[in-house]
């Protein structure tokens, strides 16, 4: 199972029997059985036949539409599950409730612990790298979480922890020609930020799809507040996965020189940066490989891919909200 990414401009996505086909420049560039697909991401300008759309919806396969540079435009989703109980428990926990506080603590803790683990892993590989002060800083932020009960303050810790991590982040880049001073977006103005933003867009497609399958309303979150058109719960659940998946791919693409500074183009005046078509394909492949990579799920104690972990974490979240479990364990990797 995997996600199909269509990044070739002017492609035509259609359905032939039980297969999804993609044609471009009068040539067939993809022919894959629908049973092997669990998501479709269309980047840039493409056409999709109504028959293909209907087939994907019936098979409960979500479609996301993004600009060529990976900015998220929208989704076409199968019907929500009829499980109203999940959504009711999600709404019941909204606001400054004990459950909301517990979940916000968990989302932030998961993210910061994974940030910290990433810095520590790097320090083991490169002991001369001076990362300890940031690691200590993150540790203090993590330790403080359990005693903080106000969601606004938890957001403050999340903001502080993220700032610490992004300060340390340039130290993790070990290839010439890439620089990173601060996280920027809309639009990203350097190659590292361009890749991070692209990766988070792809991650959002997957996490939101998992939440939809479980029956959540993706627009009601706890760490992220309600705002028109913002899938807050998807952003909440994404937090623990960001460092594990996207940041890890960006760093490995750079450090293993899979993607080089020449693979980016810059717009005049706005300085908005985007990946070349070739580099985008490389990045999409890395992302898909990462999602299919296996690890031992620390809670369930069994082998699992990140793709499966999105849904599993969403299910664990539903179980916590519906009082089946007494806590929500974020995915924390050593």
């Amino acid at each position: 199972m995997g996600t199909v990414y269509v990044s070739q401009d002017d492609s035509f996505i259609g359905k032939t029997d039980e297969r999804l086909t993609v044609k471009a420049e009068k040539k067939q560039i993809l022919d894959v059985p629908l049973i092997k697909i669990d998501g479709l991401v269309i980047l840039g300008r493409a056409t999709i036949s109504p028959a293909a759309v209907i087939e994907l919806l019936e098979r409960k396969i979500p479609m996301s539409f993004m600009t060529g540079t990976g900015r998220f435009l929208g989704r076409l989703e199968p019907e929500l599950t009829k499980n109203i109980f999940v959504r009711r428990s999600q709404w019941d926990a909204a606001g400054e409730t004990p459950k909301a506080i517990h979940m916000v603590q968990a989302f932030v803790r998961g993210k910061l612990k994974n940030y910290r683990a990433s810095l520590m892993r790097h320090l083991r590989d490169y002991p001369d790298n001076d990362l300890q002060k940031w690691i200590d800083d993150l540790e203090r932020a993590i330790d403080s979480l359990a005693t903080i009960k106000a969601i606004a303050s938890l957001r403050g810790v999340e903001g502080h922890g993220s700032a610490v991590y992004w300060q340390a982040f340039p130290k993790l880049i070990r290839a010439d020609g890439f620089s990173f001073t601060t996280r920027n977006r809309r639009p990203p103005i350097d190659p590292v930020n361009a890749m991070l933003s692209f990766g988070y867009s792809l991650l959002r497609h997957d996490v939101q799809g998992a939440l939809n399958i479980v029956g959540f309303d993706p627009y009601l979150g706890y760490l992220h507040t309600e705002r028109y058109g913002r899938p807050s719960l998807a952003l909440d659940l994404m937090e623990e996965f960001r460092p594990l998946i996207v940041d890890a791919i960006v760093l490995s693409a750079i450090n293993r020189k899979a993607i080089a500074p020449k693979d980016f183009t810059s717009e005049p005046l706005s300085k908005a940066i985007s990946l070349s078509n070739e580099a985008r394909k490389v990045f999409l492949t890395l992302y898909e490989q990462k999602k299919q990579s296996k690890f031992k799920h620390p809670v369930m104690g069994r082998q699992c891919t990140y793709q499966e972990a999105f849904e599993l974490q969403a299910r664990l979240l539903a179980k916590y909200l519906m009082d089946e479990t007494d806590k929500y364990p974020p995915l924390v990797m050593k």
Partner: protein
Amino acid sequence: MNEPIPIAALNQYAYCPHRCWRMFCAGEFVENHYTIEGTDLHQRVHTVGENQREETWQIRAIWLKSEQYGLIGKSDLIEEVDDNLYPIEYKRGHKGEWDNDAMQVVAQALCLEEMTGKSITKGYVYYAQTHQRQEIEITSELRNKAIAAITEISQMMETGKMPPAIYGNRCKGCSLFTQCVPMAKEKVSKYKEGA
């Protein structure tokens, strides 16, 4: 009068109340290879038709209903021999260790009794895998068990209250296993998060 209870819910409830809740309250249903085989079987069975085979009159795929118990559903097959009616439920596999299939037959018998005024003393489950009919004697014990289950299901459907997911042998082969994650309760409570 509440929403009628699908007769099939009795089977699911006897197998696992949590599964029954997921299917009939939360509206979740996922096909796996067991259910697909079952559906194929039922497509043959669920085509209305009647015929006479020697002394036996057979009618397939008719609606069954009971006002008294608030039941509704479709029968696979009803036979009449010597003025005696009995329901036959078709199942894909072989006889399991749970009496869930029997519950479904008893519920059909309750409907048939109300619809015809005749008393039903036995029914059958036909297991496609072994091509065998298992006779179900409709004892007062089974009747009471089915009636008690109907009351519980009716309450569950009205309140939406979820019976707990309990991990056990029957989880193997359940088509809702991925949604249910029945081991999660124990695993989460034992889990110690790493630093």
